[in-house]
């Protein structure tokens, strides 16, 4: 089953996350040897969905999807996930 999200890495300094037609950018510096992921990276949707609040549980789900993509699907070998 294909995931219900899509991820792109359009620049070395950010990741593009899409689901249900909404788009957000997570500021991740891919030059760093170790990538640290936590829910503070999930800051909000791009316009026109920028007014939509993101519940804490959704932030955790999104960052977990990003971790899964990078660490499991793409083979980034140094990714740290903090869900606290």
């Amino acid at each position, binding site marked *: 089953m294909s995931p219900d999200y899509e991820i*792109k*890495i*359009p*620049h*070395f*300094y*950010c990741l593009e996350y899409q689901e249900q037609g909404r788009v957000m950018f997570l*500021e991740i*510096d*891919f*030059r*760093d*040897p*170790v990538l*640290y992921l936590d829910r*503070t*990276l999930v800051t909000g949707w791009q316009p026109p969905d920028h007014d939509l609040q993101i519940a804490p549980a959704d932030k955790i789900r999104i960052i977990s999807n990003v971790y899964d993509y*990078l660490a499991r699907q*793409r*083979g*980034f*070998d140094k990714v740290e996930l903090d869900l606290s």
Partner: protein
Amino acid sequence: MMQGFSSKKLLKSWVMALTLICLNVLPLTTFAATGVPLEPAKFVPQQSAVEYYLELVEQLDVTTAINKSVFYSGPGNRKLAEIYAIAEDKTTLEMTPGGKQLDDQRLFEQGSPLTPAQATQVWGRLSQRYAQQAAGDVFCFVTGARPTGVFTTVELPELKKNKKVGNIYNVSRL
């Protein structure tokens, strides 16, 4: 008449350049650095791709004028650095011609000829060169930067070694 002469001269210089490439005197990547479009690179073994990009990265133009270099690391700092650079007529790595050219390659994207670790290595080298060429005062947005990040491990050590660099300001604390 003049146009014919120019075309002939241009043709002659291309023939000479191709000859030099064939003789392995002039690296092919020279043309990438000068902005002449290259065919998309195709690599069979992974090692060839990383060698290509590590060679390319040595040719890319990441120069900035004196007192113009801006660095960033850590959450939220890239956007601040970009706003500051635009407002103050300064430059971040991705604003340099070489930074933009390498960013356009999307080396971390799916389908890249490089593994993530190789892409990190290539970008680390370009970041190192960016710090090595800096001159005068440099401006850094690094509050919250991690000790394992590229700024702390690569750029800052190079800035400290760089005798052309004056003050290293943490702008986010000003």
